[in-house]
């Protein structure tokens, strides 16, 4: 039976790209739990599908189809998008250190998918999963609010960050298809997604590049979103009527500060030495590194730069008001429970 709060019925074919990934697996489960029975899960030809098959085994008869392929192949895209009504595009570019690789695996793949989907004419929504990285956060004052109204990076070609460049261009492409071909789309920009299965501590908290963990976040709130909460937001954005063309940032409630997170991590997972680097020093360091990189014609790549500082290290506030108001989203897994599960996952996975 069709739920009136959703744009398609439960029998409608739905495509999830990147379905075997960290987020994709949660989204597939979320959609199954919502009652959808015709899920086409697209995974890389080289991707492991054991976890996806385990979900299919747990929900027998729920119409989970696993399609292996390459989004760089237009024919694979044609097969994947045939008759689908909603596409959740989660597949992310690999080769994050190389701009051409990230671009090819994010933008060219998205173009192929969009072209194929438009051929089938039955598409009701294209949910494009982007990232917070598209917000330069430069003009925002310290402790300012970062929400959907903030400007995205205008010159990604100057940023020299492969992931940022690819994601800005991917969002531009989706928007362009919306304007040109009337593609019904939404864009989701999750903050820092965490949950069991993710091992790394986000760079917003600190880095261990130089052999010792440098704590950079200090009192900053970290824009965390627990993987199940984020999957729920993505599902709602793809299914809720009347939100075509909208952008949604995804962050949870009760965001911890970097210092609070690190304290809990050390208490629950493992202890290690960390050195706090005040914001003024991290900013000066980023500025110096950037200048040296430019002066030396890239002898040291500009891995640390002021833009990165503004995106990851500047004290900023985040909002999920739009997500709640327009999609009726709630943070189902509270932050303390999400952190508990994450720490448990870290312990289990070594």
């Amino acid at each position: 039976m069709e739920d009136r709060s959703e744009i398609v019925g439960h029998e409608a074919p739905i495509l999830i790209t990147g379905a075997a990934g960290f987020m994709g697996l949660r989204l597939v489960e979320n959609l199954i739990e919502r009652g959808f029975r015709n899920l086409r899960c697209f995974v890389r030809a080289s991707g492991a599908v054991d976890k996806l098959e385990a979900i299919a085994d747990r929900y027998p008869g729920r119409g989970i189809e696993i399609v292996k392929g390459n989004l760089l192949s237009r024919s694979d895209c044609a097969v994947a998008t045939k008759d689908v009504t909603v596409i959740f595009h989660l597949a992310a570019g690999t080769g994050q250190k190389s701009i051409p690789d990230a671009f090819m695996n994010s933008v060219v793949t998205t173009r192929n998918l969009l072209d194929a989907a438009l051929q089938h004419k039955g598409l009701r929504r294209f949910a494009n999963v982007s990232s917070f990285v598209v917000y330069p956060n430069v003009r925002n004052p310290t402790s300012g609010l970062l929400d959907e109204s903030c400007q995205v990076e205008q010159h990604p070609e100057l940023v020299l960050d492969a992931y940022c460049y690819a994601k800005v261009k991917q969002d531009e492409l989706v928007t362009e298809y919306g304007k040109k071909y009337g593609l019904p789309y939404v864009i989701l920009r999750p903050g820092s997604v965490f949950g069991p299965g993710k091992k790394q501590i986000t760079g917003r908290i600190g880095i261990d590049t130089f052999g010792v963990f440098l704590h950079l976040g200090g009192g900053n709130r970290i824009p965390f979103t627990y993987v199940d909460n984020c999957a729920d937001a993505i599902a709602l954005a793809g299914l809720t009527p009347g939100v075509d063309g909208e952008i949604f940032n995804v962050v949870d409630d009760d965001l911890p500060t970097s210092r609070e997170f690190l304290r809990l991590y050390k208490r629950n997972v493992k202890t290690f030495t960390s050195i706090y680097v005040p914001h003024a020093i991290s900013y000066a360091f980023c500025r110096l590194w950037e200048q040296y990189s430019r002066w030396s014609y890239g002898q040291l790549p500009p891995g640390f730069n002021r833009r990165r500082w503004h995106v990851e290290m500047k004290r900023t506030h985040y909002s999920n008001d739009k997500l709640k108001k327009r999609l009726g989203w709630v943070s189902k897994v509270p932050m303390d429970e999400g952190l508990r599960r994450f720490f448990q996952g870290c312990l289990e996975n070594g």
Partner: protein
Amino acid sequence: MLKVAIVGCGKIADDHALQIQRISGCEIVAACDTEPLMAKQLAERFRVKRHFTDLVELLNEARPDVVHITTPPESHFKLAVSCLERGCHVYVEKPFTLNYPDAQQLIGLAEEQKLKLTVGHDAQFNHAARRMRELVQSGYLGGVPVHMESYYCYELDDSSYVRALLNDKQHWVRRLPGKLLHNIISHGVAKMSEFLTTDAPQVIAHGFVSPLLRRMGETEIVDELRVIISEKEQTTAYFTFSSQMRPSLHEFRIYGPQNGLVLDQDRDTLIRLRGTRFKSYAEKFVPPVIFASQFLGNLTTNVRTFLARDFHMKSGMKYLIESFYDSIVRGTPLPISHREILLTARIMDGIFDQLSARRVVPACESHVLDGMPLQFNPKHSTTLT
């Protein structure tokens, strides 16, 4: 101003564009890729005025003096021919072509057209490699090389490239005659070719699929290779490619009748090996001090080069491109001789021919060898003619 075009806008094209922009007297006037979005992204990021999806259109409209071909190897020959026929000098990324006959034809065409042609063996032009070349040319070895050892390893980790290669039976690397080896070993082979003196050395190759890959179900990708090269019973060379040995070396050793040299490409160091010995216990104590001082000297050189802003990871590529452009503009000698390019192609053909010949073995032998039917058989050695 030398007008440059880049054909193929993937990862390696970025390195070319970055290095070209560091060289004065040239300008990238156009970029080309069959995928329009890829051509556009390179043009946008490197402020290249024009981008194309068709090479002929690029050649006709942008009229470049030099074309850098940075596409997958299968297309190198055809694209290079098109460029040479339209009067452009060509820099072809490695591997130069898929086989020796193509290399020969391409070089013949360039010579006929009086155009310059080179291959992207940029590892031979890193700082330490250049110092080694100067020493060899100055006669440090004391004569023709007696023996060389070239290690060119590649760590097969859990990267997306490796996973894609192993799981995708249609991957373009699998279509190359030498598969994974074809895409990687030319850097290591070219180092030996530079110092070989004949055009027809004997090549004996022994390759196999590593236990790691076999455990992953791989049967075709040879990732362990040992080669013996011998010419005129005078100079010999060993070449080693390994995905499993650690450390994963990129090293070249060359020994003459008097002295030897060890080039470590990863650390950009060059160590001299004295042929003479000290007397008695002095041999135990003095050489370590000499080695220590040589390493210290290498460290000093590397630091000084870094401080002088000339220690980029792709400094060899910049030097090679710059030298190639000099040969076009000023008529200086080509940085890599045609003889060396051809010899590298011949040796690689010899290796791949032997590996593929040994694939066709009786089923019983294949069974005994546990899915690794690439054992050495002397009858399969090749004298290149």
